[in-house]
């Protein structure tokens, strides 16, 4: 991943800082005074039962929802309240829980769209053309084809995204995030409803990208996937963070077990512990 932004960010610095985030729907708190940081170069998992506020939180910090309170900073620049396209331009890329794709457009076009706001071609030049545009277009195409090859979709480069299976759409979404040259990628359920082979492939791609310097914040229900990938896991329940630790510690946390399995099961488990 060639990204000048990454080189300018110190390793282990706080790339994302969220302070006192609050979001309510008609009086019901979906996100309740949430604060946390994400470290540069890490893979952070965000888990929690259905309706715990994970997707709402992500929608808030990427400009799709307007929270009632809270501030958030990307690489020390405040992005609170900005419209969604600013986040991508600032280096944050995201995927969606309901897998989105530009159905009628080819895979290659989809990736070119994802990348076109992230090179140095101005709005004016993108209409009137010129050498700079030609060079940028060639480079974008080369990169898009390379990414499609990485996710094993190169043979469908000219096919419309409509024909892809669910798992292939997840792979396309992941490649699209890479076209935006991000330094933080937020993945909303990247392996939900996907077969094991694709899960392993997505896992390997994320690891490889992380090794090249991309930071990940992953929302997911697949615990095995989270435990394999993440160095840190945050657990959200009823809009509040109830655990924030290493995966093995979180797995043993009674509050987390209670949130996932119900209190009765949690008590039963505790009873069997020595």
């Amino acid at each position: 991943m060639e990204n000048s932004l990454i080189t300018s960010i110190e390793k282990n610095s706080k790339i994302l800082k969220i302070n006192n985030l609050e979001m309510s729907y008609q009086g019901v708190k979906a996100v309740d005074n949430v604060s946390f940081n994400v470290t540069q170069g890490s893979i952070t998992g965000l888990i929690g039962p259905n309706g715990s506020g994970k997707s709402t939180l992500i929608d808030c910090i990427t400009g799709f929802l307007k929270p009632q309170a809270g501030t958030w900073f990307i690489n020390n620049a405040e992005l609170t309240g900005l419209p969604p396209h600013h986040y991508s331009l600032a280096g944050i890329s995201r995927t969606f829980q309901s897998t989105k794709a530009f159905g009628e457009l080819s895979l290659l076009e989809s990736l070119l769209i994802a990348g076109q706001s992230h090179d140095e071609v101005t709005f004016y030049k993108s209409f009137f053309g010129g050498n700079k545009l030609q060079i940028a277009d060639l480079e974008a195409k080369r990169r898009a084809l390379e990414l499609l090859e990485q996710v094993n979709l190169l043979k469908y480069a000219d096919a419309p995204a409509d024909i892809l299976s669910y798992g292939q759409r997840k792979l396309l979404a992941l490649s699209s995030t890479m076209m935006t040259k991000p330094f933080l990628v937020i993945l909303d359920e990247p392996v939900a409803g996907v077969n094991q082979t694709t899960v392993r492939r997505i896992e390997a791609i994320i690891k490889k990208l992380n090794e090249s310097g991309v930071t990940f914040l992953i929302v997911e229900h697949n615990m095995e996937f989270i435990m394999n990938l993440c160095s840190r896991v945050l657990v959200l329940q009823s809009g509040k963070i109830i655990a924030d630790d290493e995966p093995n510690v979180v797995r043993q946390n009674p509050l987390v077990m209670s949130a996932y399995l119900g209190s009765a099961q949690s008590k039963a488990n505790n009873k069997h512990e020595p």
Partner: protein
Amino acid sequence: MVYESKFKISLLALILLLCISPYFFHSEYYFTLGITVCTFAVLSAGLNLLYGYIGLLSFAQVAFFGIGAYTSAILVTQNSWTIWTALPIAGIFTGIVGAFVGYTSLKLSRHAFAIVTLSFSLLCTIIAREWISLTRGSMGIPGLPAPTINIPSLETIVLDRPNYLYPVFLIYTVLALFLFYRLGVSRIGRALKAIKLDEPLASSQGINVLSHKILAIVVSAVLSGMVGGLFVFHLTIVDPSIFDFYYTESMLIMVIIGGPGSYWGVLCASILFSVIPDLLRFSSDLRMVAYGVLLIISVLILPNGVAGFLRNRNNKRWKIH
């Protein structure tokens, strides 16, 4: 790919042939028909940019056409401007109005946008009828002077007949359609399509949705306004009927049957559906019935337009599982 290029070249050759076809007949009627085709080609390309590319069902297209028509007519008759200076001003003024309509209505939902633009068009009709001191109300502004071309050391050419005006329309249409084409195939056109297909996804990838939408409305308004400004000098009168729903209806038919989002599909449909009503004039009783039947058949056979049919056929080629 080769097949597609050959198809486009053949289509372009056919369109060029159609452009010069009025000269084969030596009849003013065919030049008048050519002017109608040019006007609708620009108008439907403008609507296609909004509805086909970006997914905004705009009923304001006819209002931009009418505003351009009234602006150039007023500037020429009341301020003694020439049509060549009045036309760009009509385009700029219509573009400003388009930006205002877009900015105020685009923050609403797509459905609300359709309603706002429809109301705006109706409002324009009322203004044209009621602001008598400016527009002369229902009487309109008749007797618009024929455009003239002054070439130094040559006599002045008065464009007072359809066969003299037709080349002006043709040049303007080619320029306007070239602009629409460039916009459609540029990165901006790609972004517009992305916004139509999935707005949240497009914005999450750094595309400024609002500015792209406003740009599309402004471009569409400017070019439609200018063709309106030119068209009234063919009619030699402008009155509130310039805002008639007939124009909107025709544009919608051309875009829907041509295939929303397809440049060539809509261009072909605009030629075809400008000419067909005239070809059916042999029977004044059955003319509209035949036109209606033709439309129903077209919609039944091609529910997504010609372009949609071609797209579905392309999708069937890609079978993965």
